[in-house]
């Protein structure tokens, strides 16, 4: 029993849970509305896009890579699908979602091939890709928003499950974006936990040489991770359109740092092999709660980014100190011979 508690405390997610709890308690004390169902759902809805994209990024980071082009992918998918919907009035949401996922996946494929077959460092390959995509989009759209999207996607974005009228007005319920976020999480979790593919990625991220020795195809696994990340970006992109009801090609400039920040805050190691869906979810919520909590706590905008930065530094330092302790203690947990 106490063993189990210890094990939970030792989990990499523990430090972020503690910090998250602190942030939540402080936010709640500053303003009780913070913990209301309504506010929680609002926070999740407006961070679902970040959360879905973070799932893809997680898989890439597990391979020891990084995907700077995630913002570009999101923008590209929103613009291309938005354009299609607007020009043709096409409104089959399932097809649109699939299309978004395919476009994202193709960009991911390009990234993956550059990284695995040309051995480009991931940060550079995807930085280059991001520059190219954003340049292309600006050139192509001139930054114009895409409006007048089919009513169907607008209605879809407003769906709330189990909804009932709110106290002040509007509907309070579980937003459809939360469901999509959940689906992305479960899919990623399932992939990483239950499929051989996912386990191979975890294995390779931990030790590439061993992976090769047991016959894993590192190149294909790496490529797949970027494709997966692209597909998640596609899913996130259409979800964004459903929330915003319009497309702003500039919406995702600089977005990559938010996504990477959330994943790493969630305990994933940039060196690969280590990280979890739960941790990433917590990382996303951490970002979301800090921003939401600070406004709810009525803290001036001018102070917000200072506080956010300090919290990031605190969390990662806390994590580091904990990790040091763990490695010092590491040989003490062991399997032992039974003896004759």
């Amino acid at each position, binding site marked *: 029993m106490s063993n189990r508690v210890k094990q939970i405390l030792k989990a990499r997610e523990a430090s972020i849970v503690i910090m998250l709890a602190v942030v939540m308690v402080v936010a709640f004390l500053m303003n009780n509305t913070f913990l209301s169902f309504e506010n929680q759902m609002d926070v999740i809805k407006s961070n679902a896009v970040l959360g879905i994209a973070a799932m893809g990024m997680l898989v890439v980071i597990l391979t020891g890579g990084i995907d700077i082009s995630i913002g570009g992918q999101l923008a590209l998918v929103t613009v291309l699908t938005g354009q299609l919907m607007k020009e043709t009035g096409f409104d089959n949401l399932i097809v649109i979602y699939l299309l978004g996922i395919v476009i994202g996946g193709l960009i991911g494929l390009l990234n993956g091939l550059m990284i695995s077959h040309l051995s480009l460092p991931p940060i550079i390959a995807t930085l280059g*890709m991001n520059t*190219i995509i*954003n340049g292309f989009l600006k050139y192509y759209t001139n930054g114009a928003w895409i409006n007048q999207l089919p009513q169907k996607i607008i209605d879809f974005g407003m769906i709330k499950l189990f909804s009932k009228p709110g106290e002040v007005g509007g509907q309070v319920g579980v937003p459809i974006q939360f469901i999509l976020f959940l689906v992305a999480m479960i899919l990623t979790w399932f992939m990483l936990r239950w499929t051989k593919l996912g386990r191979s990625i975890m294995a390779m991220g931990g030790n590439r040489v061993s992976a090769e020795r047991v016959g894993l195809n590192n190149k294909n696994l790496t490529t797949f991770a970027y494709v997966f990340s692209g597909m998640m970006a596609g899913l996130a992109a259409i979800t964004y359109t459903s929330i915003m009801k319009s497309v702003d090609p500039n919406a995702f400039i600089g977005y990559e740092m938010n996504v990477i920040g959330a994943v790493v805050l969630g305990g994933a190691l940039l060196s690969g092999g280590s990280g979890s869906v739960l941790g990433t979810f917590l990382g996303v919520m951490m970002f979301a709660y800090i921003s939401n909590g600070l406004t709810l706590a009525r803290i001036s905008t001018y102070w917000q980014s200072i506080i956010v930065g300090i919290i990031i530094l605190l969390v990662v330092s806390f*994590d580091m100190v904990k990790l040091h302790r763990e490695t010092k203690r590491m040989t003490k947990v062991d399997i032992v011979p039974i003896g004759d």
Partner: protein
Amino acid sequence: MEKVNNNPPTIGDRVIQGIRKDPRMVFLALVLIGLIVLMSILAPGRFLTVRNFKNMGFQMAEFGILAIGMSVVIMTGGINLSLVSSSMLGAIVGAYLMRALNQAGTMSDWSIILIGIASILTVSVLCGLVNGFFVAYVGVVPMLVTLGTQTVFNGISLNITRGSGISGFPKVFQKIGSGTLFDIPYTLLIYIVVILIAWYLVQKTPWGVHVYMVGGNEKATRYSGVNTKKVLTLVYVFSAVMAGIAGILMISRYNSAKADYGSSYTMMAIAATVLGGTDINGGSGKVWGTVMAVLILQVLSSGFNIIGINRNITDIVTGLILIAVLSINHFTSKEKIRKSK
């Protein structure tokens, strides 16, 4: 390799030796020359002019110095996302002081400027120490540390300025950014001096060698009696001082300081560093490589502006060149890359 040759080496020999020693630099030089030729053809009579080169001299310095600050950090296997925000934090504090002193009007312009510059560099050193502390002493991954400090530095800048610009420096201060000596921009001269100092420090001094060693294997370096915490801290301080100098040039050139100046430089500095041949994983790289990459990016940007090509195309081409140069590198030194894995 140590063959003794009686004849003094001819220039041709030297060139061949240079190529053997550093094919990467030669390749970059070829790209640079190719671009200059291309731009000269596309913008006849305008690109290949003294005026344009002077112009590029004005422009290059601030970014070039930032890129050097980034390179040294990357050589240790780290990264500095807070580079530009520390630059601006220093500049804003300095600008604030200079404006206040200038308005008080009791001091001579020169002493105001000296105080301004000193305060900018002081703030830079402090920023560097903060980064260095978290990276070297707490042991947090540089990317996370600097992501955090970037947000903090930027927040402080916003808090001081409330988002607006600070101006009203002594008139002579502008000279730093816009004056010339025998028609050579001061900024270019400063850039050259900074390059030489950086080259000297990184390639000629024990600290510089330690930078590479830490980049290769921090633990083994520490076990060799090197105070790697100090080395790393100094690296971040050096990086921040570079940012501070770039900040001085920027606020002088723009005659004002504001929280978001140069915001597009961070990613570009990373790109320039890697384009210049520094391994993003640390342990290798040369100051001259970064300088060469900055030159390439400058020619590209100025050239396209003069020709009148859409800025977005410049971005696309920059991305393509980055990927292309590194891919070519992969094919030419396949053996090396495989070994290093």
